[in-house]
């Protein structure tokens, strides 16, 4: 129990670091870190440039903070709306059934079946390379809500048959009350796992687009930072501060989010009275 709460604390601490890095620090940046040739190129880390400078003469630390801000925005924005829409659509489909189920399932199937990356690539051509991060996020939501929806629906289907739901139904509770009191707490930990996953899917998809040069490359995101670093052979050129900082940031960010999610699910388990020792 204590160990699990410690996980939550560590996770929150990591997340707090990223919120400071991406949410607060950019407002104190002495420069727009996206500008090129503002500093000498390829400086190693120093007191003046905490993470050195890039081959394009940008300060890597401030670049990273801008990139974190944009990537967090994409990840959280997409995950929040995709999970929200997905969970409610899936539960509605599973519990209400009938026509609602058919329509939602069909819609979900369409978005699952159409591969999203080619569509994103097409859209960025369609918009003549002006695909903003917001637009990329919206497309990602469009392609990510069916996942929780499908899974929620099948959980709902199997749960409809379960004892505690039937008990509640026989005791006269309405559908909404059943949802709120019995189902939501039950699926909360799963929804959190899904949320974390969607954050990562969103960030990974954006960086996937970036690696083939199709994201909004003038914006700094963790993906485009990696793109520019790879374009300038930072990996083979051993410029670790440049290529390494966004990679380490992505890894840490995920670990932080994951610890939070397991922490929350164990808390909810405790609350239901099945404290996992």
């Amino acid at each position, binding site marked *: 129990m204590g160990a699990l709460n410690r996980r939550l604390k560590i996770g929150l601490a990591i997340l707090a670091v990223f919120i400071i890095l991406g949410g607060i620090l950019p407002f104190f940046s002495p420069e727009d870190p996206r500008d090129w*040739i503002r500093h000498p190129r390829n400086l190693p880390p120093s007191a003046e440039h905490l993470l050195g400078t890039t081959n394009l*003469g940008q300060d890597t630390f401030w670049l990273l903070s801008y990139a974190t801000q944009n990537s967090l925005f994409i990840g959280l924005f997409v995950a929040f709306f995709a999970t929200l829409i997905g969970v409610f659509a899936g539960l509605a489909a599973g519990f209400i059934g009938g026509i609602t189920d058919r329509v939602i399932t069909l819609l979900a199937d369409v978005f699952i079946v159409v591969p999203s990356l080619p569509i994103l690539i097409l859209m960025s*051509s369609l918009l003549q*390379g002006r695909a903003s991060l917001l637009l990329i996020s919206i497309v990602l939501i469009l392609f990510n809500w069916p996942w929780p929806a499908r899974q929620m629906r099948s959980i709902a289907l199997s749960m409809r048959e379960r004892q505690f739901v039937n008990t509640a139904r026989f005791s006269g509770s309405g559908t909404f009350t059943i949802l709120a009191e019995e189902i939501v707490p039950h699926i909360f930990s799963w929804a959190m796992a899904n949320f974390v996953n969607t954050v990562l899917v969103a960030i990974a998809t954006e960086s996937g687009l970036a690696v083939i*040069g199709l994201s909004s490359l003038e914006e700094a995101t963790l993906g485009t930072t990696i793109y520019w670093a790879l374009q*300038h*052979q930072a990996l083979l*050129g051993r410029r670790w501060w440049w290529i390494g900082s966004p990679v380490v940031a992505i890894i840490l960010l995920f670990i932080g989010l994951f610890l939070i999610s397991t922490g929350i699910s164990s808390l909810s388990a405790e609350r239901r009275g099945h404290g996992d020792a």
Partner: protein
Amino acid sequence: MNWRSSKLVLSLTLLSLFAMFSMALVSAQEQTEVGTPRATTLIVDQLGGRINNPTQTNPYQAGTHMSAGLHQLVYSTLWEINTATGEQFPALAAEMPEALNDDYTSFRVTLRDGLRWSDGEPITTADMAFNIDMILNTPEFPYSGFLSQVIDNYEVVDDLTIILNLKRSEPRLAYTLGVHIWGDNFRMVPKHIWENEDPATFQNYPPVASGPYTMTDVDPNGNWFLYTKREDWQHTDVGQIFGEPGPEYVLFRFYGTEERRIIAGIQNQLDIFTDISPEAWDILRDGNPNARAWHENFPWANFDDPCERGIIFANSQEPWDNQNVRWAMALATDIKSVGLATFAGILRVSPLAVPPVQVIHDAFHKPMRDWMTEFAFEDGYQPFDPNYAVDIAAILAEQGIEGMPEDEEALVDLFGVGWWKHDPAKATEMLQAEGFTLQDGAWHKPDGSPWQITINSPSNFEVQSQRLAFAVADNWRDFGIDATVQQMDGGTFWSNYNNGTFDAGSYWPGCGALPDSWDLLDAFWHKRHIVPIGQPAPGNAMRYDSDALSGILDQIAPLPSDHPDTIPLLTEFEKQFIVERPWLPMFGTSKFVPVVTTYWDGLPTADNFYEGPWWWWSLFKYHMPFIQPKSDG
């Protein structure tokens, strides 16, 4: 914590792995992956990636990929180019075309004696006549439309002599039916094979052709193509002109991303590179002591690629229809910072409409340098800065670059004759005179709206132009204009260009490999090509309507290349071009086209300059006799 120690292990692994990576791993392979002896197989970087239709080798079909060895080694043309001397020479033809009348509508063409197809049959004028008829009668060929505008009829005189009668005057027939840049579409195929086939659908695999190599094996996935030297190489034009090709086999190979190509080069699995980035060159140089760029030392890159890079404007739209606005943009640009951001300063500047390749640099840029220095606006302001070469050399020396020449003349040869001053004050004055206003550090157009410039740029291809776009936008933002870069895939990039649906763009409408580049200047700038915006332009995509420039081009049109007035008139064109400033050429193209000399002698370099490093041009076949296996290899 476990994850922390795992991370430590991971980073240690990475560190040790890159430490090892820096050591040159020379793998002494006896055989190539395709089973040929490594020591006699020249491995060439396949430009343009994997080819999904590898056995489509019909040279006239639209979707046949010519640059993976086909036009370099298998097909040949009537007239070729030598970029080292800046002259064309007869290839399959025995001589340059001989005009039979004064208006250049009838020519005698003779073929080289003793040439044979790769199956041993002789190459005669019957084949040439067959090719002309076939192309004219196969409208499915993209080339058909063009040839039918040129050729009216022919008369076969004997096996080696043919007379071509044209529909229009062609003072430069060797440009029209021969190579000026890259290659030419008129690639002869043998009559005795093709007369039994439907040319529109014939795959032609394996091809029987006239070049010194034959295509002997292909990867079904299109990652490699193997070519074998013809035993009867004496019966090819290459053999007759230059002698026996050195490599027994030539393997064109697509290794994938730049990292892989570099690793392949470090492992001696790639002898000849097409384009790589300056950063990649640094790594290759560290990793393989036998890697050699065009220059032995700084600046390494070759500056003779036949197109120059810069920024074009939508000249028919406001505010770009105003010559003073275009000039102001030149003065608002800090060319040194653009050069440093683009390719770390490894570039040769060009203020003219033709690229600064060596033969053209000597014929136009350097002779015009004094004129440009003296050139002044109506108000007496002299915009030219002749000190670019000296200044950039000083900046690079400060960054620790060694091995640069000392004297100004050599620096000018290297970095160019100079460019326009970086003078934001003068640019501000010029814009304000045109009604533009500067409010809170941001420029507004005469109608009061904020001035936004969108620069089209290639995304992930043509890296130099891509980086240049970002660097210029960065510059102009500092000047107070809201400039952004719009990256585009190839299709979008070019259709916007041709349709004129752009504001500004990082394109390269300044090409040429020979002093007489009238044909290209005419295509880029003559007003008769202009069509309304939204329609694809046959030329002059910038839609620049200038009577003065078009007039000079009309004067040059009827003159053959060696006419004494041709060069002076082209110089007049350049002067008028500077006055009107229809686009902002900035740099010649810097190509990092290194070679690995582990197995080979005689690969072309700056100090062995028999030909430029154009492995993707059809002239690559003429490199072959110079390239010889290392005797101890």
